[in-house]
């Protein structure tokens, strides 16, 4: 009994403050979460349009009642948002989706675009990451690295560390000084794209052509 009394005497301010500060953060989060989500959607649209310049608007497959799931960490399945990119003439010009995975510092969230047949990558961009500034965050702006993804096969990709004269199109040379982050990007794209492609073929959204 005395121990509990002593504990409360010593820490009552800390306990009350924790509740009060927690409440303050919860109020701020509730008040601004809509704006934060809207900013995220705006950025996603902006990045996707840059990757698929012919696209005029995007149809969320969720709204058509089509659900795509991929295997995330520890065997858990995670729902993925896949968008159909449509041109002004209402023709499908490609597909885009979000995928995430562990980077060097924290989770890396990507937006990935592929062509209409799901055969070739149109590219990727970074939606959110906390990689080390000046090192890991080169995945956002290293043009040579990013250019390798454009036109690469939409399937299993392999991260390689040295430039080989016989380099295959599915091999991506990682960035020196940002090895873990750039390997993580290859892994995220490779993992998500193979699973999404398989499900989309099963659902008849794309052909089975190789």
């Amino acid at each position, binding site marked *: 009994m005395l121990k509990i009394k002593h504990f409360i005497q010593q*820490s009552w301010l*800390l306990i009350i403050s924790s509740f009060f*500060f927690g409440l303050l953060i919860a109020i*701020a989060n509730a008040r601004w979460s809509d704006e*934060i989500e809207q*900013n995220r959607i705006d950025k996603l649209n902006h990045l996707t349009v840059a990757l698929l310049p012919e696209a005029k608007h995007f149809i969320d497959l969720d709204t058509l009642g089509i659900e795509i799931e991929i295997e995330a960490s520890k065997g858990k399945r995670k729902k993925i948002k896949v968008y159909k990119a449509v041109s002004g003439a209402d023709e499908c010009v490609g597909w885009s989706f979000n995928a995430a995975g562990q980077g060097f510092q924290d989770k890396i969230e990507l937006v990935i675009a592929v062509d209409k047949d799901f055969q070739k990558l149109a590219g990727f961009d970074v939606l959110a990451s906390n990689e080390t500034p000046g090192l890991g965050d080169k995945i956002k702006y290293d043009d040579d690295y990013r250019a390798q993804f454009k036109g690469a096969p939409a399937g299993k990709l392999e991260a390689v560390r040295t430039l080989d004269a016989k380099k295959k199109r599915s091999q991506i040379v990682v960035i020196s000084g940002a090895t873990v982050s750039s390997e993580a990007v290859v892994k995220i794209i490779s993992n998500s794209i193979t699973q999404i492609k398989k499900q989309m073929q099963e659902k008849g959204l794309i052909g089975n052509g190789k």
Partner: protein
Amino acid sequence: MANDTKAAACLYKQTLLAGLWRENPVFRLLLGMCPTLAVTAAVKPALTMGLSVIFVLLCSNIVVSLMRNLLKPHLRILMFTLTIATFVTIADLFLKAFVPVMSERLGPYVPLIIVNCIIICRAEACASKNNLVVSIIDALGMGVGFTLALCILAGVRELLATGTIFEIQIFALAEKGGWFVPWAAMSMPVGAFITLGLLLGLVNVVCKRKS
């Protein structure tokens, strides 16, 4: 009574000016070096960081000053950290909601304000020992001093790296028929170290001459 008022006004003035020059956190105390070097490649992110630090410093000094008589000595650092972390989280959410471009540009350096020495230093050295008014003035002086230092450093670096200030072209670029050749190194970490070193040397010379 008149003497008391005069003494209080003198104390407030001294507290305010200390942060701006005599005890400037960047140029005199060398505190908060991580954001000083990392976010000063351009003036806009530097100003955003400065304003965020002013907000956090002001709020944490107010809270710490109000509960200074209730603080247990062995738990005070924990209380400071809890207070600072709360206001940094709120500042981070605000930037993400209303200034997303700057939030993205500053990246992890906004959450890292939690470990900025200036804030915990002012909570320990000033707010936990002084009344509310002195704590507020101290927070404003230190915060504005930090922001000014960051903006001066960022101004020099942005001007030499791109010929702009606040992204407004000041120097005519050589590639567009002008005379200025951008000095790319100034936007890199090496530029931050060189500029900070030169500015510290300049401040030291001025201080020596004054004394």
